[in-house]
């Protein structure tokens, strides 16, 4: 088994796995039948993993969501599409590597696929800017979504970003404007839009490709209004309080489903998507096909209205909000 970066709460598993590995080696070198012990230990390890992952705290989920081996947008696209061509450029002078997109086919259905792209290691991450898209990335996404609208291709987006890039150049190029335009224009798209948070959904940088008819989240993905680290340093004046902030902010799939902000929670293989990337991709593909089928039956007008109504309902306020008599009537 390939060694992978282990998360601190996975430590109880390490010893077990080492034992399993030792017995395997032993079995190879000797004639002793250890299959019984192996099976027992493996079952135990699986059960432990199940226990650990079914009780993750929000802060631990963040670690899973940010795991370097967690499948990325391009990983999923490779597996779930039957055909795929990456397309490039915002047509305004840049091709952001942190936000990728292209055309592809899932079964018989041609689609446009767009997502944040993180790297696996430091070198890749530098090239991908750690999945933090620049204004050009959001404009590339919008250009591809407009293309999808023109050719009536449903849009699948994959959210996996710590947040939109915060830098001098990003500000000068209009990071706020780029995201804002996407938020507005995504309400105009006449094709089904399905967004899935595959890793971390960081604030406006996530929402910039997240105005969708269906918002799905993997079980251990998180979606935040502000990173718990930033939130802790602002509200608690102490960045070390990030785990507390992570809990307070209600960032897990289960919490967001309960708040009515997402539609579907996709279950993950035991141990998280990085333990079973193919299984995760199969889950994703199945859910996307299911939602595409449902949304494909709606008229364009119904689709637009439902998308508007979906976001219109979001929020919690007190008071009926009666309107005062209006001017000039």
């Amino acid at each position, binding site marked *: 088994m390939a060694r992978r970066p282990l998360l601190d709460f996975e430590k109880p598993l390490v010893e077990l796995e080492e034992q399993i590995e030792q017995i395997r080696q032993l079995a190879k070198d000797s004639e002793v039948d250890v299959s019984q012990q192996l099976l027992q230990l493996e079952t135990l390890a699986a059960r432990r993993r199940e226990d650990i992952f079914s009780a993750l705290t929000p802060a631990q989920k963040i670690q899973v969501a940010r795991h370097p081996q967690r499948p990325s947008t391009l990983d999923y696209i490779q597996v779930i599409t039957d055909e795929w061509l990456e397309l490039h450029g915002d047509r305004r002078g840049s091709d952001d590597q942190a936000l990728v997109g292209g055309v592809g086919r899932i079964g018989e259905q041609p689609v446009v696929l767009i997502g944040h792209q993180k790297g696996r290691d430091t070198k890749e991450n530098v090239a991908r800017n750690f999945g933090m898209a620049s204004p050009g990335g959001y404009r590339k996404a919008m250009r591809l979504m407009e293309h999808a609208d023109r050719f009536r291709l449903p849009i699948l987006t994959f959210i996996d970003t710590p947040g939109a890039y*915060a830098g001098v150049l990003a500000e000068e190029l209009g990071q706020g404007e780029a995201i804002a335009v996407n938020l507005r224009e995504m309400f105009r798209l006449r094709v089904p839009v399905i967004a899935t948070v595959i890793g971390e959904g960081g604030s*406006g940088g996530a929402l910039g490709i997240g105005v969708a008819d269906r918002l799905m989240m993997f079980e251990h993905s998180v979606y935040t209004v502000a990173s718990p680290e930033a939130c802790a340093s602002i509200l608690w004046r102490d960045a070390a309080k990030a785990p507390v902030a992570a809990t307070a902010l209600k960032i897990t799939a289960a919490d967001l489903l309960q708040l009515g902000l997402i539609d579907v929670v996709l279950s993950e293989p035991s141990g998280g998507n990085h333990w079973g990337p193919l299984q995760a991709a199969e889950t994703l593909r199945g859910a996307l096909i299911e939602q595409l089928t449902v949304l494909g039956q709606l008229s364009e007008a119904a689709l637009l209205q439902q998308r508007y109504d979906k976001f219109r309902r*979001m929020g919690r306020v007190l008071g009926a909000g009666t309107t005062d008599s*209006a001017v000039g009537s």
Partner: protein
Amino acid sequence: MSLFDWFADRRKAVPVVRTPQELDEGDGLWSKCPECGLVVYRKDLIANASVCSGCGHHLRIDSEARLRLIADEGSFQALDTDLSPTDPLAFKDRRSYADRLRDTQISTGLRDAVITGLCRIDGLPLALGVMDFRFMGGSMGSVVGEKLTRMVETATDRGWPVLIVCASGGARMQEGMLSLMQMAKISGALQRHRQAELLYIPLLTHPTTGGVTASFAMLGDLILAEPKALIGFAGRRVIEQTLREKLPEGFQTAEYLQEHGFVDLIVPRTRFRSTFASLLRLHGVTPAVAA
């Protein structure tokens, strides 16, 4: 009678002139400009739209003062005045959100960080939203999102132009993801307003940042700003700390944004009313448009 009504009544009964917070250090009659130190007679300062006559510094003003500077006298009719924030996450940092809300409501006399309504400006119809930075830094939670969305919808129904005076630190963390989604909700309402070929203009005042910049602040057909206002997506500290980049001179000021193509016009507060009314007329808004 609810506590809110009591405050509302109390405020109606006693027509005190609310003075900007920055002036509180003055002795009541005189105010000192925080920028150039000039001491001016407070009545003169207020008569000059709280702009320092010495250096032109725009002092921060609250939403009521802003309303008085924009709407024709007596024309403003508030919408959705009974919408109040709740505490959907039972959020608690060093203090509970519920306590924070209550204290802020008492100290400001506001229910949340935006006032919305319908008014006239120079006789022309206008749906007007004014954010108030005093209310938890003008942060956008469910109430801000809902009130602005309803106001934009009303404007779309009536065929009216919209002005939103922005002053905000961004999305309100205490309402978590509900706050983030307000960005999308308002943008959706603005999309319909735009589809109806109606005019939307935000006025960016000091400061306009975060989720507000990444939504309605940057979606104007025309974008106006006050001189020297801080406008940006990411906070300066975030950019400096996480990226160790040195910030250029005047970074994220209204002037800087105009240079980079994101602000149409920088309008001194004293000229805002006449400039804005001109813009409305140039875009075919007439008193008759009022339904």
